[in-house]
């Protein structure tokens, strides 16, 4: 399997693979003079081996009793790796990319490019600021790019139609970026003579 195929990782996610967390000692149980210390597993690879071991170790309780001076790593399943909610499915109906052309008091005007049907001409539209997520309002500037999408979302509650405006979070050009572009231009000019 190719090293960049995601299917192996996806399979791991969907099996609820054991995750890794920071190595912190937690007091597991205190009984009379005995202290049980449990360490979290440090890596998925170690967890994989350790889970197989722990299933046998957990049933043999005498092996779990430890002294404080020589703690034994007793791995446990900490958490499943996060997985995308299987219940949510998205079907894209329409997608435009917009570019802000004018900012007014309570709305902004934009040119929309249809990304679902590339044969359609650009259109202009106005959007109210109250249609935006509060944190996206700070991103509205002349020339800012955004995605306007209309999708079906299928979840546990059934199907709903969702219209969403998301501003693209593009960082401004840095001096280094400009320098790289300039260098590329000079190289191309040199090649073309």
């Amino acid at each position, binding site marked *: 399997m190719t090293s960049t195929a*995601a299917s192996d990782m996806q399979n791991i996610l969907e099996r609820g693979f054991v995750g890794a967390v920071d190595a912190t000692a937690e007091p597991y149980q205190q009984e009379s003079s005995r202290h049980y210390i449990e360490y979290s597993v440090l890596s998925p690879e170690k967890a994989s081996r350790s889970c197989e071991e722990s299933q046998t170790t957990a049933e043999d309780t005498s092996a779990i009793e430890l002294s404080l001076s020589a703690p034994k790593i007793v791995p446990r399943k900490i*958490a499943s790796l996060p997985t995308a909610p299987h219940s949510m499915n998205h*079907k894209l109906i329409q997608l435009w990319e917009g570019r802000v052309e004018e900012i007014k008091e309570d709305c902004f005007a934009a040119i929309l490019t249809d990304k679902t049907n590339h044969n359609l001409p650009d259109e202009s539209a106005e959007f109210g600021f109250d249609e935006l997520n509060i944190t996206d309002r700070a991103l509205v500037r002349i020339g800012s790019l955004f995605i306007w999408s209309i999708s079906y979302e299928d979840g546990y509650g059934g199907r709903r139609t969702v219209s969403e405006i998301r501003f693209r979070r593009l960082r401004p050009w840095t001096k280094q970026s400009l320098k790289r572009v300039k260098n590329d231009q000079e190289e191309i000019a040199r090649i073309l003579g």
Partner: protein
Amino acid sequence: MPEAESEGRTVVLVGSFNPAIFQPMWFVKEGLIRNEEAESVTKNGPKLIVTSDFTAFSVEEGFQFQLEVRKDRFVITCRNPAHWQLMLDLVCQTFEILEHTPVSQMGINRDAHYRVNSAERWKEIGDLLAPKNAWHKLLNPTTRRVMIEGTRDGCTAKYIQATVEPSSRFPLPNRVLSISTNEHYEWAASNTVLNSVEILKSNWDDAYMFSKALTESVFLFGATK
């Protein structure tokens, strides 16, 4: 052509990474995701893993994506077509910030899951992609997975692998077929990530269109109705 039950895109980078960097709040601090999206990671229970060897989390509100980073791999997946451009932006912006990250391989991947209407067609697809004549020594041979490798016109990818198998997102007895593509790029010497970012940007749309056409043609192959 039936609608896909589910469709996702993934970017995989193979190189040298510091997993501990890729915490949700780092992305917020760099202005790449919203604060509430980072907060959604742990909203419904612990779904965040951050160590020096491995980081993984899933954003479940707003721009929904899954991220996993190991020391040698960076994998990001998004299953909402409306947010695929956002995922591309996130990857490109991240590695324009971390511009000295060495990267030797990249995968631009897509997976799509299609429901097959009948048991007969389910068997027919398996037999068409992997004829059973050669396997007559086996009793009840069944196709479990087919992987084919090739290239596409005008693409500098080393290869494109297409894989067809029963869907793990909609496991048996559902008759849902997973058809996935992996467009694999490789560089002879260790390379900074900026080259990968440029290739990713320039191939993002074409990789999707090709994958979609390929998966649809495979799904419809030999269909008589």
